[in-house]
C-alpha cells in the first residue's frame, strides 16, 4: 500500500495553490468554488430526479426492449411493486397514489438544471484543467501494483491515508470519470430519446439505441448505476471522515495536518 504516489501537481485545488505544496497546520483550499457549487446543485437535482423518477416508473413498472411495449406485451423486467394505475397487471390488488403530474414537471425542470450545470462543470473541467489534473489517472495510477493495492485497500474498507484528503485515488478517479463521461451522457441521451418531439427532430437519437422502450430501459439501468455510485460515494466518505470531507465540499477547505504525501 506504500506505493501509491499522489501526483504533486494535483494536490491543491488548482495549479496556483498546489505550486507551494508545503502544507501548514489549519485549513487549506481543497475544492474550487465552481466544483463545490455544481456538486451541491447536482446533489439537489439528483434527489429530485430520483424521487420523481421512482414516482414516474410506478405508473408503469414494466420494462421492455425495442420500440414498443405495453400491458399487452411481455416485459423484460417487471419491478415487483404495485403500480399507480389500474390496468397494469402487477399481481398486486391495490394501486399506489398517482403522482405522475408534478413528478414529470419536477423531473424535467431538474433535468434542465442538471444539463445547464453539467455544461458549466464540463467547460470548467476541460478549460481549467480540473479533469486533466484532478481526475485523469496518471500512468503510475494505472500500474497493476497501484491498481491492485487500491482495490485491496477498498475491499478491506481501510480508512484512506491522510494524503487522500488532497488528491483523488485511482478508483475514485475512474469512478468519477465513468459517471461524468459515461453515465451522465447516457442518462441524458436515453431521457431525450423517450421524447416524441425530440426524436421527431433527431430520429437517430432513438434509432441508434434500438427503440423508445430500449431507451426507457437503459434510462432505468443508468439510474440504478448512479444510485449504486451514490451509495459507494457516501460509504467512502463515511469511511474517510464524513464531516471533514463534507466540510471540504462546502467550505472548500480541508485539514492540513501532516505532509499530504505522508505514507501509512
Amino acid at each position, binding site marked *: 500500500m506504500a506505493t501509491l504516489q499522489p501526483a504533486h501537481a494535483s494536490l491543491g485545488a488548482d495549479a496556483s495553490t498546489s505550486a507551494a505544496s508545503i502544507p501548514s497546520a489549519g485549513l487549506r483550499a481543497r475544492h474550487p468554488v465552481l466544483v463545490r457549487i455544481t456538486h451541491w446543485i447536482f446533489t439537489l437535482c439528483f434527489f429530485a430526479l430520483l424521487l420523481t423518477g421512482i414516482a*414516474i*416508473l410506478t*405508473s*408503469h413498472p*414494466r420494462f421492455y426492449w425495442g*420500440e*414498443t*411495449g*405495453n*400491458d*399487452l*406485451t411481455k416485459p423484460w423486467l417487471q419491478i415487483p411493486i404495485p403500480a399507480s*394505475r*389500474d*390496468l397494469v397487471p402487477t399481481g398486486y390488488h391495490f394501486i399506489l397514489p398517482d403522482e*405522475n*403530474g*408534478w413528478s*414529470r*414537471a*419536477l423531473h*424535467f*425542470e*431538474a*433535468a*434542465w438544471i442538471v444539463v445547464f450545470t453539467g455544461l458549466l462543470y464540463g467547460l470548467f473541467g476541460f478549460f481549467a484543467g480540473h479533469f486533466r489534473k484532478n481526475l485523469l489517472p496518471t500512468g503510475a495510477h494505472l500500474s497493476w501494483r497501484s491498481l491492485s493495492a487500491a482495490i485491496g485497500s477498498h475491499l478491506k474498507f481501510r480508512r484512506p491515508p491522510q494524503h487522500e484528503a488532497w488528491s483523488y485515488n485511482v478508483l475514485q478517479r475512474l469512478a468519477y470519470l465513468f459517471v461524468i463521461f459515461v453515465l451522465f451522457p447516457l442518462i441524458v441521451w436515453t431521457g431525450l430519446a*423517450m*421524447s*416524441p*418531439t*425530440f*426524436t*421527431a*427532430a433527431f*430520429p437517430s437519437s*432513438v434509432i441508434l439505441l434500438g427503440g*423508445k*422502450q430500449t431507451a*426507457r430501459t437503459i434510462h432505468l439501468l443508468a439510474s440504478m448505476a448512479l444510485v449504486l455510485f451514490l451509495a459507494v460515494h457516501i460509504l467512502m466518505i463515511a469511511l474517510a471522515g464524513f464531516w471533514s470531507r463534507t466540510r471540504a465540499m462546502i467550505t472548500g477547505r480541508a485539514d492540513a495536518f501532516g505532509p499530504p504525501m505522508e505514507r501509512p
Partner: protein
Amino acid sequence: MTDTSRRKLILGGLAAAAGVAGLDVAARLAEKYGLVPPDHGGIYGPGETLNYAFQRVFARHSLAREFPSSMISARPFPNEIAPPSDAFKHLQAGGFADWRLTIDGLVDRPAAFSLDQLRSFPRNSQITEVSCEEGWSYVAQWTGVRLSHVLNLAGVRPQARYVVYFSIEPEWWDSIDIDEAMHPQTFLTYGMNDNDLPVGNGGPLRMRVPRQLGYKSVKFLTHLTVTDDIKRFGKGLGSAAPEGGYAWYAGV
C-alpha cells in the same frame, strides 16, 4: 467597508441589474416568438417553458417518426377510459350516423361535419407510435383527414393562435398551438389498421398529435374552436391536463 468589498458590491449590484434586465428582455422575446406555453406559471413554469421553447426553436416543422407496416403492434393497447356517457351511447346506438364535429371561433365559415363528410375529404395514413406519459407505447396505422384541411375549409383567421378541441365526454379537452394544428401529421382520425377506429382507441373520431404524448390525442372528438386567447378556456392553462398537474405541452 474596504475598497475591494465596495467594488464587489457595486459590481454585484450591476450584475444583478443586468441579469434582471436580461431576463426581462428574454421574457419579452420569448412571448413575441410564441415560446411561452399557457401553463408557464408556478414553480414548474421555467421547465415547461424550456420544453416548449425547445420544440418551437428546434422541432417546429420536424415530422414524428413513421414506421414500416411490419412494426405495427399486433394488439394496439386501448387505455382505460371512463364508462361512456349517455350522449355517447345514444350516438353509438345509431352507428355514429349523427356524430358531428363542429368548428367555430376565429374561422370565416363555422361548420359541422359528419363522419361521412370527413371520410370524403383527402384521406391520409400514418404509421406512428402512441407514447403514454406512463411509459408504454404501441405503433398503429392511423387513417384520417389532416386537421389543416378541415381548418382551411373553415377559413382560419390570421390572428388565430390555438385550436382548442373537446371530447363528447365531460371535462376532456385540450389545445395545441396553430403550428401544431397545421402540422401535416396532425389528423382527425377515424380509422386504425385498415378498420374503423375502435371505441377503445378513441373511435369514432380522435385527434392525433403524434409529436406529443398520448393524452394530447383526445378521444371521441366533437368540437373544435379556433382562438387567439387561450385564457378564456377552463382555468386558462390551455387544457384540462394542467388543471390535473400535467403539462400542456406534452412533447417530452
